């Protein structure tokens, strides 16, 4: 039941998550740069960027409607709301009711994505529309994989660590790579029009709105990493460190895929997740 203590605990966890979310991105960037024998920006760079953006003025196109102005707030709020929901599900020995909470959390993230895609179309620039269409294309394949992977996690509630956890974790990792726009699917580091998906959508934004959207993206990434760490029964800080290392290694060792090969990548994730839930049902 939701007691006052519980509410305070969940709020505290969400605030902590939001505070440390940019740091995780900075650490991944640092690991990647060091592995490539570069120095790279410090791990606090995302904080400086967000601070800089908050202090800057906004430039808004005259052709935009209210959606363009509302979208950053909605995206940010949806990420915070999803993190509240995710922390309502207790890690460890899951009870089956948590499935509902987790699915609600990922649906709320979908609301944010919907408004971001609309905002990308709103200004009428060709890049924004292209980014939106690609984002919806990718997420329509990534979302089923996420849901089935979470389903496997909750179905194997009482089971000990086994095949279903490993397979489900892999499926969620692949889906998380797509959702957080990392390398085999998208590239965070470039604004080159051929490769960009997420960056193309938010190309029109500047100043405070861009800061909110970036912060929301960091929080969303943390949410995926949090759920991912539950699969392997690793407590949060160590889990984040391992996941950061894994993601950085994947990013530097894999080339970006063609857009239509992403379908193969994500349908593989979906079927691995399905295999995980079959294994969970059989008790592994």
């Amino acid at each position, binding site marked *: 039941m939701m007691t006052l203590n519980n509410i305070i605990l969940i709020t505290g966890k969400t605030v902590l998550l939001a505070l440390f979310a940019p740091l995780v991105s900075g650490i991944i960037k640092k690991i990647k740069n060091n592995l490539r024998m570069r120095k790279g920006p410090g791990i606090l760079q995302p904080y400086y960027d967000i601070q800089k953006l908050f202090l800057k003025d906004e430039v808004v196109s005259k052709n935009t409607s209210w959606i363009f102005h509302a979208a950053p707030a909605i995206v940010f709020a949806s990420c915070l709301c999803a993190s509240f929901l995710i922390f309502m599900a207790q890690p460890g020995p899951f009870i089956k009711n948590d499935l509902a909470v987790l699915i609600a959390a990922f649906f709320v993230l979908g609301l944010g994505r919907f408004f971001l895609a609309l905002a990308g179309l709103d200004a009428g620039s060709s890049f924004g529309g292209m980014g939106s269409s690609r984002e919806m294309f990718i997420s329509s394949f990534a979302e089923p994989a996420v849901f089935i992977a979470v389903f496997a996690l909750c179905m194997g509630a009482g089971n000990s*660590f*086994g*095949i279903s956890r*490993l*397979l489900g974790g*892999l499926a969620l990792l692949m889906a998380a790579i797509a959702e957080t726009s990392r390398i085999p699917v998208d590239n965070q580091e470039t604004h080159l029009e051929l490769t960009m998906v997420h960056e193309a959508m938010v190309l029109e934004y500047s100043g405070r709105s861009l800061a909110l959207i970036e912060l929301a993206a960091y929080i969303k990434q943390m949410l995926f990493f949090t759920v991912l760490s539950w699969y392997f029964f690793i407590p949060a800080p160590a889990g984040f460190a391992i996941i950061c290392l894994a993601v950085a290694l994947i990013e530097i060792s894999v080339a970006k895929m063609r857009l239509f090969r992403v*379908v*193969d990548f994500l*349908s*593989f994730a979906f*079927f*691995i997740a*399905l*295999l995980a839930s*079959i*294994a969970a*049902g*059989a*008790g*592994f």
Partner: protein
Amino acid sequence: MILNFILSGFLIITFLLVITKRITGLIRAFRAQSIFLFLYTFYQGFTQRNLELLVICGLVFALKALVIPFVLLRIVRRIKAEEDLGLIINPQLSLVIATVFAYLSYLFAHNAMPRANSPESAAFIASLTAVCIGFFLMASRMKALGQVIGLLVMENGIFLAAGAIAGGMPFFIEIALFFDIFVFVVIIEVFVYKVSRLFTHIDTSKMKSLKG
């Protein structure tokens, strides 16, 4: 714990075999699967302190992870085979079918194995899935090399099944099997080479008409 990692890896690679679209990718995936098989045998041999199993795991590594992929990659280079596999079922639908195989394997193992949740049961399921998928690869890939890989995957599955149910076959049978596989691959290499020289392709679906 370690066994879980090995068996999950084996299953994931088995699914990768289904989704690859290229012959070289298929051969590399087979090599990765053989490495997981080697790890499984090594783990069993190491925990049971069984010298025969350790020798066999060395043979698995040498033959299936080194020699056979090398021979197959060499024939791909020699006949300059086009990369595509002659899929008659596309990768996504193949994945659906592979998942159905995996589910049936779970169902079967649930009824057949004495203890449902044991690691042996998990290994049995992985092996059964590999056998089914190997046969499926043979049936649905129309290039000769794809069919060879299908047969080798089935062999991997049966090897794993023997390890899971009986703790490995008798030593001499294993050795004989390895020679069998080795000779098979060498013959296939020559055979595929001749076929590609004669027909200028290795697509088995186009070999129904006679050619002198």
